[in-house]
């Protein structure tokens, strides 16, 4: 099998201009070479999961005439990963503007992923028409108060899924709301500081570019409750490009869309879909694979592009 992550990784690096594989040992982050990443993969005694984001089913534009087709192609790549991912996390904007039938299309395509299960948080495109009614009817079950937010543990790692698009503020930025933040504080309280924590949400929890609404207004209090942990990884979508930032023991990472890329912060008059040929766009859409290696060893985040 042609491992998609290595090829994709190289192309991604060329585009993003920054290293995308990071290691975390004892809370100290450092970048790794690809060869080291391969060695870690070979150990394969931990587990991996895949982040899929911003599938925007229903989108048709210059960069992509069929968002369902590119999602299917990326799912085919995910299904070729060895070992298979333990689960998939979809970080929102399943649909493009809640187009009728789009949720069904995503559900059907994701059923084709060879993995145990999938976790979801909504994007603003999934909830803006009906305040989240359809989304929560589908994915609210089993979440806290059926509000869509949730936590779970997997092989010693604590995962938290946050919803920051249901209290979309007048300025057009994400927000968590007091109830969810208070739940988060209680959820984290019993954990020891050495527990690795992975937080996922749609809109970035760091101020990527407030002028375009690429920020979660009340994220600071949530992040304060995460400060005592030695290893925190925050996975977001929304901005359709890979950006990383490290602040203390917290690593922030945004994923590509599977549908279309958006411009770098401030690089265009608006954050609208980039109007580029499909072949070019395929090198800017993809998925993210996160791999844990047993024994408190490094955690690797690898972004893989389609084209």
């Amino acid at each position, binding site marked *: 099998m042609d491992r998609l992550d290595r090829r994709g990784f190289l192309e991604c690096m060329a585009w993003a201009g920054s290293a995308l594989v990071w290691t975390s040992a004892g809370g100290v982050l450092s970048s790794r070479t690809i060869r080291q990443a391969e060695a870690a993969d070979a150990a394969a005694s931990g587990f991996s999961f895949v982040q899929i984001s911003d599938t925007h089913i*229903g*989108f*048709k*534009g*210059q960069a992509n005439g069929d968002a369902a087709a590119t999602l299917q192609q990326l799912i085919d790549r995910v299904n070729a990963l060895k070992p298979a991912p333990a689960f998939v996390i979809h970080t929102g904007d399943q649909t*493009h*503007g*809640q*187009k009728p039938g789009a949720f069904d299309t995503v559900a059907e395509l994701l059923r084709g992923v060879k993995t145990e299960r999938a976790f979801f948080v909504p994007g*603003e*495109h999934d909830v*803006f*028409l009906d305040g989240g009614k359809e989304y929560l009817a589908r994915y609210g079950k089993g979440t806290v108060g059926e509000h869509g937010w949730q936590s779970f543990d997997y092989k010693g790692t604590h995962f938290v899924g946050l919803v920051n698009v249901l209290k*979309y*503020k*007048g*300025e*057009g930025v994400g927000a968590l709301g007091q109830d969810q933040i208070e739940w988060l504080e209680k959820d984290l309280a019993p954990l020891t500081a050495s527990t690795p924590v992975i937080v996922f949400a749609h809109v970035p929890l760091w101020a990527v570019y407030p002028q375009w*609404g690429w920020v979660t207004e009340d994220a600071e209090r949530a992040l304060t409750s995460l400060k005592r942990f030695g290893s925190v990884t925050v996975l977001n979508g929304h901005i359709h490009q890979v950006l990383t930032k490290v602040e203390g023991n917290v690593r922030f990472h945004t994923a590509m869309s599977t549908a*279309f890329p958006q411009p770098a912060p401030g690089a265009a*008059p*608006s*954050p*609208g*879909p980039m*109007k580029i040929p499909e072949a070019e766009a395929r090198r800017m859409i993809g998925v993210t694979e996160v791999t844990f290696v047993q024994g408190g060893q490094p955690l690797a985040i690898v972004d893989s592009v389609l084209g």
Partner: protein
Amino acid sequence: MNKVAIALIGLALAGGTATHAAGSSAAGIDIKEFKFAPAALEIRPGTTVTWTNHDEETHTITSTTGAFGSSGLGNDETFTQTFTRAGTYEYFCALHPRMRAAVVVK
């Protein structure tokens, strides 16, 4: 919510002076690069306004009072609304709430 919205419109209408004869004219508002243009459209009562979304991103026309509203408009899709009574009708995009504009009927 609707009762509040209607009450607010009622106030706006009471203050307006509907001196223009109701006509069947038309006006257009373009949505481009996450902006409504013109941001303040002035029309006479009876005018039908058509919004056209030139962006590939979805946008909405959502009244701040709930008086009118579109679903998500895709690329090249339109939404029309006829304004029969004087007043200032503010609206925004529900997906990008910092996109704000107004239709002024007088």
